[in-house]
């Protein structure tokens, strides 16, 4: 039987990456002094799942490292070892090493062999030093009489746990008996051998050694179950020995994730760990294990589902993996459907409602269904922003250590969903912002204390919806931006600035390319490249960046993004004979200008007085060189637009209506057009251009110099 394993391996890589990510997240969340049992279990499960998968696919190097990690974690969660902060550090580094190894297996780069050895040694060190019972214990194992099993694998497994002292061969009538000297707890031995043999057949006891702690309960061979987990009586241990190690459902959790392995015919691949997989002679006992486990699962899944989901907060086992292209294709098709539907609806309007009643109601229903379908498909692309946020606890922790700062990172609204396309593009600019806040924003503990602030700084990442936008804020309670320094630097670099500029404009200066006020360039930030990139990236996503800052109190940088790349809310406007769409997010208001409010600026075009504020008035037909169809400003509409903290009034002929439009890229088949962000297809099948407001604002500034704009009346 030859099976194409590559697809399963790909799934394993994806899953392992996910497990590593959750491992890291959990470790960072962990309260070292008083770790939460559920969290420890989850960490253990993540390590265990990686090990299981790695073993199944024969990545023995991964298995080795995770095995040590798993053992240590196992002991910690059983309170046999006390968790210490250094351990978390080593665990995190182990996670990094595993990630490198995974990448190496994927054919991306090489794993650092030295680092592997290093973490392995450190992990082993923790295992040894915290193992006071390293004196060997005699453990007796008895396997009930019955079918043959894989003796070779069992012996290998036992040898890995300790030294085999005594061994008695069994058969259909006689039980097999082993006695081994081991430093490990009998529970962990039971754990590992129950992969090989139906656990119901195994009985295990800590032989001659009597432990004061539970000696009283040791008369039977089941003593260890009480020691391993008090919550489950020893009779549980016989039927479901795995459960003594987890708290009930933990063991079964990985199964649904491995569904494909199960279906694939190799069967229960997951339950057969590395050690036994290569040896196929004795399939029967393995099958038995699988059957019991599966039926167990079926029975349990009913009453445990709720409990299973809630604490783990794990959605992965009910999801499927679909390539992004497929989703995009679906989205495109739905976009087409929406256009076709509105075309139909428009044509249907011309029909006599009495004669065509049925057709019209059909069209109305089609509209409803299309809308719902569109929303559903859109939601497929939506992912929680935690995918971006999750990398920051680690980054902040590492950076804070490097910079000798104390930081508490708070994340709010991680479940806010946004388009997958944004998730990918967002991580770069966000990283810059976070680093910036840490490096330039937050002060060192000494400075903070001197200023009367708590030594520990706060860094908050927050995501929320506002109108049709998603807003992401990075705020710190650090020193805030230094207005004087920014202005001085701007003058030094020859920017057109004045001391009377409002704060909002001064802050925007830090987004200029090559602008850095950092006294020294560190390896963290200060080269003045970052913020420039931030603004570019955010703008390319159709969003904008705003800064609020107060000296000594802190600063907040907010990134405002549309909900999705593919669809936007727009206002359709007419200029000359053309129809254009302006994204609603940029529109502040629209008004009918009065002639007395419009003033000419010698050779600089016009400005309009909007409630005491003079804004440059730009006629769209002028920018686009269209024939003018209006004779005076009073015949048209001025739309007040804001982008990058600048406001302009755009003069158009008329407002037509508000639409949801499907954004099409103009550059697929053509090139970029100045002032145009993209195109869309209107209900009648015509193409309409979507205006690029940020570019229009810039065009406006070329007409009137910037220092004329903010002069208040």
């Amino acid at each position, binding site marked *: 039987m030859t099976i194409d394993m590559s697809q399963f391996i790909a799934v394993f890589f994806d899953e392992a990456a996910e497990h590593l990510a959750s491992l890291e997240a959990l470790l960072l969340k962990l309260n070292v002094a008083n770790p939460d049992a559920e969290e420890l279990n989850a960490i253990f499960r993540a390590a265990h799942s990686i090990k299981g998968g790695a073993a199944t696919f024969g990545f023995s190097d991964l298995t080795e490292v995770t095995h040590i990690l798993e053992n240590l974690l196992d002991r910690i969660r059983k309170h046999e070892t006390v968790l210490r902060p250094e351990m978390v550090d080593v665990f995190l580094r182990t996670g990094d090493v595993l990630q490198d190894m995974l990448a190496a297996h994927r054919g991306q780069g090489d794993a650092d062999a030295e680092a592997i050895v290093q973490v392995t040694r450190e992990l082993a060190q923790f295992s040894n030093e915290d193992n006071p019972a390293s004196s060997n214990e005699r453990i007796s194992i008895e396997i009930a009489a019955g079918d043959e099993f894989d003796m070779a694998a069992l012996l290998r497994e036992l040898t890995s746990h300790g030294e085999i002292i005594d061994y008695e061969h069994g058969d259909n009538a006689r039980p097999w008996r082993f006695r081994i000297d081991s430093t490990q707890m009998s529970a962990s031995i039971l754990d590992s051998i129950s992969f090989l043999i139906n656990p119901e057949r195994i009985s295990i006891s800590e032989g001659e050694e009597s432990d004061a702690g539970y000696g009283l309960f040791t008369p039977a061979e089941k003593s260890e179950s009480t020691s391993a987990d008090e919550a489950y009586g020893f009779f549980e241990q016989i039927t479901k020995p795995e459960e003594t190690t987890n708290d009930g459902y933990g063991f079964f959790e990985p199964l649904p994730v491995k569904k494909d392995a199960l279906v694939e015919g190799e069967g229960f691949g997951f339950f057969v760990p590395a050690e036994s997989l290569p040896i196929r002679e004795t399939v029967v006992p393995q099958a038995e294990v699988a059957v019991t486990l599966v039926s167990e699962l079926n029975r349990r899944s009913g009453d445990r589902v709720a409990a299973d989901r809630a604490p783990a907060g794990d959605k992965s086992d009910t999801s499927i993996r679909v390539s992004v292209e497929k989703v995009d294709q679906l989205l*495109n098709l739905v*976009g*087409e459907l929406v*256009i076709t539907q509105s075309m139909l609806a428009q044509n249907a309007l011309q029909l006599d409602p009495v004669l065509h009643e049925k057709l019209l109601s059909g069209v109305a229903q089609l509209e409803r269904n299309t809308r719902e379908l569109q929303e559903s498909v859109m939601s497929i692309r939506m992912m929680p922003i935690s995918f971006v946020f999750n990398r920051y606890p680690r980054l902040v922790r590492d950076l804070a250590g490097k910079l000798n700062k104390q930081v508490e990172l708070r994340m709010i609204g991680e479940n806010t969903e946004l388009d997958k396309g944004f998730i990918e593009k967002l991580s770069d600019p966000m990283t810059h912002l976070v680093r910036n806040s840490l490096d330039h924003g937050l002060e060192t503990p000494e400075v903070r204390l001197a200023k009367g602030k708590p030594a520990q700084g706060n860094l908050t990442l927050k995501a929320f919806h506002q109108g049709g936008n998603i807003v992401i804020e990075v705020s710190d309670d650090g020193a805030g931006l230094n207005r004087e320094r920014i202005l001085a630097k701007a003058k030094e670099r020859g920017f057109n600035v004045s001391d009377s500029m409002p704060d909002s404009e001064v802050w925007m200066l830090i987004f200029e390319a090559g602008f850095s006020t950092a006294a020294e360039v560190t390896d963290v930030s200060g080269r003045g490249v970052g913020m420039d990139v931030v603004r570019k990236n955010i703008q390319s996503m159709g969003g904008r960046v705003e800064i609020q800052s107060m000296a000594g109190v802190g600063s907040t940088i907010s990134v405002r993004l549309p909900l999705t790349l593919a669809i936007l809310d727009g206002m359709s406007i007419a200029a000359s004979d*053309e129809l254009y769409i302006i994204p609603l997010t940029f529109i502040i208001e629209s008004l009918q200008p009065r002639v007395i409010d419009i003033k000419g600026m010698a050779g600089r075009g016009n400005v309009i007085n909007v409630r005491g504020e003079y804004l440059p008035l730009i006629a769209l037909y002028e*920018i*686009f*060189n*269209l024939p003018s169809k209006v004779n005076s400003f009073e015949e048209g509409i001025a739309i007040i637009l804001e982008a990058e903290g600048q406001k302009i009034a755009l003069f158009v002929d008329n407002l037509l209506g508000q639409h949801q439009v499907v954004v*099409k*890229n*103009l*550059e*697929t*088949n*053509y*090139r*970029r*057009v*100045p*002032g*145009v962000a993209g*195109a869309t*297809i209107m209900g009648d*099948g*015509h*193409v*309409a*251009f979507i205006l690029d407001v940020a570019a229009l604002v810039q065009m406006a500034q070329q007409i009137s110099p910037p220092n004329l704009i903010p002069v208040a009346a």
Partner: protein
Amino acid sequence: MDALMKDDDANRELLVFALGKEEYGIDILKVQEIRGYDAVTGIANAPNFIKGVINLRGNIVPIVDLRIKFSLGNVVYDQFTVVIIINVSQRTMGIVVDGVSDVMTLATDQLRAAPEFGSALDTAYILGLGTVEDRMIILVDIEKLMTSADMALVEAVAA
């Protein structure tokens, strides 16, 4: 020319269209479809031969009028105006021509190198001249032509 000569075993199939009195041929594999001229949305500040973009089943496709570009033929737009939709360098675009006459196969021995002048097109974009009976077909390297800086259709060159 060389590229054309090399795969001479498979004779080139050409779509022949007219611009004014001249007949031009382009590789038929580059042609996606032929359609009428309809519902073009003008692009601001674009050269006059770029008529605008159309909605081709959900794709935004630019339309270039070769008659304006090469000052050939009568520039009128009616129900007989023909647009050839072509696929060049992973892009889809449309060209407006005076008319499409036929599809023909040219053998290598029917091809001659183009003289230095003699057509409205720069010889750089001409692969050769084909002779079929007493007609002369000008073989155009449509990919090179459409992605050239002259056309201002493609970002890299236009910028």
